[in-house]
């Protein structure tokens, strides 16, 4: 309890015009961003500077200019202290195949400074929490990708850090594994009280998991705001109705009636065949829902669907980065 209150009142990660330049490329360009407690998504295409940022945050790579703090500790001077309090899950494979998960995670716990007995206890606990049971005594070489990702997550959590940095944790997982991993990431904060910074180049998966999303591109900050901001500024309603004898084209009838009531209705088809029956309208609040319900009922139509069309995070790119490669990738997944 005490710990949670401490975490609550500090900024977990703060960077101030942080830049990292290599001889040929600028990986980070005056990035200033504050990350609070909770689950934060760091989104960007490959090469956007996500991994570079993580290296700097772990105190392993000096910034060219600017400064950064993690848990209130300066990355330039307090690297070792930061690494004791932070967990890191790399993007790439990092597990030796000929040892068991238990053996490996115990070793990593000791490498984080846990005494031998505590290392064993915490390993058993953590492996259970990430969902590895009997398998944990078998050599890692025989694990599935999903199990390996869990071991990688376990080694990042075993020393009970205050913050974990997860680099592309859903890479290589099938849809079910992806959902399980995202659920696990959510629980890291809600159940364990550990703040999470999770990177991904896929925007769609982060909007479900994160409280806050930071979008970087070409080393620059594109946008940083909470996921609710991303999606709730305008809520779009999708409506689909049945046709009756009285109104052979129910969709049109609803559209005309709503138009008459002063509600702007868009065609939801996007030119796609078969989608012509979907109407999109902007919900102003509770009353829009009531209005739709009443209109449909008055016309005697059946309401097949009335759902919130959430704005996808990918839409940030439409405005800000129309022509970049990111857009293609983001749209490809986001829809």
């Amino acid at each position, binding site marked *: 309890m005490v*710990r949670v209150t401490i975490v609550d009142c500090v900024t977990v990660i703060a960077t101030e015009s942080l830049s990292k330049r290599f001889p040929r490329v600028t990986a980070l360009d005056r990035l200033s961003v504050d990350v609070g407690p909770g689950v934060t998504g760091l989104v960007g295409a490959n090469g956007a500077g996500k*991994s570079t940022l*993580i*290296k700097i945050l*772990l105190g*392993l*790579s000096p910034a060219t200019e600017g400064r950064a703090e993690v848990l209130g500790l300066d990355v330039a001077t307090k690297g*070792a*202290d930061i*690494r*004791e309090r*932070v967990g*890191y899950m*790399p993007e*790439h*494979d*990092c*597990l*030796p*195949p*000929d*040892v068991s998960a238990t*053996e490996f995670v115990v*070793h*990593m716990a*000791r*490498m*984080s*400074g*846990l*005494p031998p007995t*505590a290392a064993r206890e*915490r390993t058993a*606990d953590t492996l259970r*929490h990430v969902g590895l049971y009997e398998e944990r005594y078998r*050599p890692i070489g025989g694990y599935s990708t999903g199990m390996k990702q869990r071991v990688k997550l376990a*080694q990042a959590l075993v*020393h*009970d850090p205050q913050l974990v940095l997860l680099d592309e944790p859903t890479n290589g997982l099938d849809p079910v594994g992806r959902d399980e991993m995202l659920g696990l990431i959510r629980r890291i904060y809600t*159940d*364990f*009280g550990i703040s999470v910074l999770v990177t991904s180049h896929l925007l769609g998966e982060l909007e479900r998991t994160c409280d806050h999303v930071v979008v970087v591109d070409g080393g620059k900050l594109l946008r940083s705001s909470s996921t609710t901001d991303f999606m709730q500024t305008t809520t779009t309603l999708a409506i689909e109705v049945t046709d009756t004898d009285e109104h052979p084209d129910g969709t049109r009838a609803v559209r005309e009636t709503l138009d008459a009531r002063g509600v702007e209705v868009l065609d939801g088809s996007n030119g796609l065949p078969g989608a012509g029956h979907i109407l999109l309208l902007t919900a102003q609040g509770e009353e829009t829902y009531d209005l739709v319900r009443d209109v449909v009922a008055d016309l005697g139509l059946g309401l097949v669907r009335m759902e919130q069309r959430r704005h996808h995070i990918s839409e940030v790119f439409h405005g800000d980065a129309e022509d970049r490669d990111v857009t293609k990738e983001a749209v490809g997944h986001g829809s």
Partner: protein
Amino acid sequence: MAVEQPLAPTPGDQTRIHNIGYRNYDGPRLGRSYATRSLYSQSLRGAYGLGRSVKSKVLPMLLFVVMCVPAAIMVAVAVATKAKDLPVDYTRYAIIMQAVISLYVASQAPQSVSRDLRFKTVPLYFSRPIETADYVRAKYAALASAMFILTAAPLLVLYVGALLAKLDFADQTKGFAQGLVSVALLSLLFAGIGLVIASVTPRRGFGIAAVIAVLTISYGAVSTLQAIADAQNSTRSIPWMGLFSPVTLIDGVQSAFLGASSAFPGEIGPTNGEGVVYVLVVLGLIAACYGLLMRRYRKVGL
């Protein structure tokens, strides 16, 4: 399972025992030096296959036995025949067994560092409190210790045997001590050379081949040249040639300062003056190996 069934689930607190939520860790965090020591002990155990698969225990254990058996036989012979001295000097033992030692370092140096590179475990280590220097020191110290165990154990067998055979105590203790100093130097030198070569490649096979090649080719070349020089009676050049292979370096140091008789052709070891050069070269090589490892791992990072 069947055993648990008679225990009827009593309502109340007992059912809750299984539902342990996440527990925070409030215990001590022992920091960087403890982490370095943990890496040292894990690597040292790993050098004998402990904590790893059965398969990886076979070779190091076998080599350890092969190192000790001749010593045990010599002791048995010495005790049985009531000899006045051991058949082999303490300092000479490692030189005779150099093939076994080379094989050990060739197999275990890549095991120690190439695996971490190959499976990319190194970045994980550096995401912990330890620094590059801690990693290098832990790995170097672990392999050097493992080699010291390998080379000192047979000396201990000889020493204990010599005492059992009631050989002169002072004489034997002095010889044993000189032998320990010599194998300690040998362990540091061989471990350094092995690790530097192994840390270049993530492929274990390459590492093994390269270490064996460097150790045996250098020794083969040096001893051949020395034999030729001996045959041509240019004995003055023999000690200088010894500077160019690890085994002959150790031989030179111990014949100059540790009372050993040289294994060079005609037993022409270095004089004391030349011996100083030997010691400097050995220490310089050890320092160079350490420096190269540091340079190598500064680049590896995340």
